[in-house]
């Protein structure tokens, strides 16, 4: 049984004559205990995808199935089912916690909303949750304003874990934190996953974070998954030129100081808008290797090595497959 199964999801916004095609034929499957990383730049459809999984946005086409139940229709019962199984950790721990509430009430809210347990069992569950995210019990009566950014993000994680979800959605959970704190929150997430085995979807643009927080990676560009594979595969041999461009763009500690005239960026120009997606391969205007076929025909998904797929005309399919 897969935790989440998205098949051929599309989502358009705007009018029929001028659609914003936010998601175009996206299929994803997440197994129990699996950690999927979603990488992409702004406008690539990451957030729309997350909203669909959370039941906040409907699909234009395709089906969403959660724990083998079809929840595409988004009926009231479907939504209740989704909220009992999927929880989210937000990017900004400043604005995602109610500043007027005490930490104990913030963490207990999902339990109350789902009608789990009595007041006493909920209180003891909150204390356990604080322990499991490494916060001292004295924070129970504190308010978010008294906590640092890293501590607040831990509260956000505790809140998401409260109802023992089957799937955790993490939207850039460490992006607003300092490096030294980010590493500690990441350690916590990795530890929790090992202990609880909750399936996770982590959205991030930080490839270093994804490397350590995901088993499998999906790279999105203009509403499509352009490459997917295990973390090991993708980081060892990225096949799609966009994935390669992303890797080339990350500055690494220990890089030599760059000199004039040296060209190291692989993606030119800017991301096109979802209002006006280029014909053929959506990446071709920025691709250094684009040829005629890239301008005219949209590439199909090709299996480049077992389990690694890329949407590109230029990659060679795996030997033995047609």
């Amino acid at each position, binding site marked *: 049984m897969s935790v989440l199964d998205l098949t051929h999801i599309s989502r358009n916004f705007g009018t029929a004559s001028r659609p914003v095609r936010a998601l175009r034929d996206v299929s994803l499957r997440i197994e129990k205990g699996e950690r999927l990383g979603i990488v992409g730049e702004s406008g690539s459809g990451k957030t729309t995808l997350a909203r669909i999984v959370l039941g906040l946005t409907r699909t234009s086409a395709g089906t969403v199935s959660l724990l083998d139940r079809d929840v595409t229709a988004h009926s009231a019962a479907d939504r209740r089912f989704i909220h009992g199984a999927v929880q989210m950790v937000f990017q900004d721990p400043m604005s995602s916690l109610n500043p007027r509430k005490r930490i104990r009430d913030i963490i207990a809210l999902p339990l109350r909303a789902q009608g789990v347990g009595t007041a006493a069992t909920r209180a003891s569950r909150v204390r356990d949750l604080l322990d499991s995210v490494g916060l001292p019990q004295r924070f129970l009566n504190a308010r978010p304003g008294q906590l640092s950014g890293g501590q607040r993000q831990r509260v956000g994680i505790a809140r998401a874990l409260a109802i023992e979800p089957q799937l955790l959605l993490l939207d850039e959970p460490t992006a607003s934190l300092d*490096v030294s704190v980010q590493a500690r929150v990441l350690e916590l997430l990795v530890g929790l996953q090992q202990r609880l085995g909750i399936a996770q979807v982590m959205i991030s643009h930080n*490839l270093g974070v994804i490397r350590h927080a995901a088993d499998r990676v999906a790279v999105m560009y203009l509403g499509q998954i352009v490459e997917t594979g295990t973390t090991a595969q993708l980081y060892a041999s990225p096949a799609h030129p966009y994935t390669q461009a992303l890797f080339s763009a990350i*500055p690494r500690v220990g890089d030599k100081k760059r000199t004039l005239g040296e060209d190291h960026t692989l993606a030119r120009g*800017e991301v096109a808008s979802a209002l006006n997606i280029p014909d053929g391969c959506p990446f071709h205007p920025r691709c250094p290797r684009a040829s005629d076929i890239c301008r005219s025909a949209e590439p199909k998904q090709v299996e480049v090595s077992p389990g690694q797929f890329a949407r590109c005309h230029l990659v060679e399919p795996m030997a033995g497959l047609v």
Partner: protein
Amino acid sequence: MSSLLAVDNLEIGYRDTDGVDVTLLRGISLSVARGEIIALVGESGCGKSVTAKAILGVLPDNLKARRGTIRYEDRNLLELDEAAYQAMRGRAFTLVPQHPLSSLNPVFTVGEQFFDLIAFQGRTHVGIIDYWRPRLSATRRRAIRTRTIDALREVSLPSPEELVDRYPLQLSGGQSQRVLIAMALVGDPQIVIADEPGTALDVTIEAQINDLLLERVQARQTSMIYITHDLGIASQLADRVYVMYAGRVVEEGPTATVFATPRHPYTAGLLRAVPKVTDESFEGIPGTLPDPKAIGQGCAFRWRCPFAINACAESVPPLSDVGDGCRAACVRATELELVA
């Protein structure tokens, strides 16, 4: 190499509402030579941006420089009056801001914003006659427009002739940042201060912006002070790096040397905390930044430092020579074996 700009032992603080003196910069010293690129790295609250604001002379009113000097050529900037300071902004030093989308005025076109900059840069006050004179002269207008288009072309913006008449809202984040870089360079400055110019942008665009900055700065032999929390960017851009913690420089030296063989436990901790794209493990630094009111005497990192000893609480360790052109502010700098 003689320095173009030298900050010496700068202390900046404010008095809070209870009348307690709070110190944000606790004796910062740094220098930039002509054509040199330095990076200020550190986490939020370490004083990177306050340092930049102090150099630009745009500190908030409640922040006061209590001690130290900022020397540019032969002048102490802290002693200048506002008119003299304004005459230097944009020419001696200039800023490339962090948030491109909120740094341009949304109600004026790109061309209009350049017009004021080119016509009136360096002045604190423009009277009505001065204001209209360049606008009423067709030759002046044409000359300024040509100069604007050239400036936009220099930062590789496509079709600058059309772009001058656009409003900031019609530009993408990357284009806005290019416009701001062009504005920063239009007065032919000696020092560019770039305050995390790419963080608000997507990764591939951020890489383009950093490339462009490096290219423009090197082509003009301009110096640059690049503020960032990304140690990778500092590696790629800077000749020398200053690692800051809680209002002090804790380590400085040639970028490659500092990052390969850090001598201060904070630098080493920071390097280990970066999640790498390789299999290499990472670990965070325990604890949080101390409250500036509670540092007292002693090393500000001592609560989070795995190597702290009694001596660390007694006095502030001075920046001292640790070889290879590096200096570190740690009493145990020469005895510790640190792993980056």
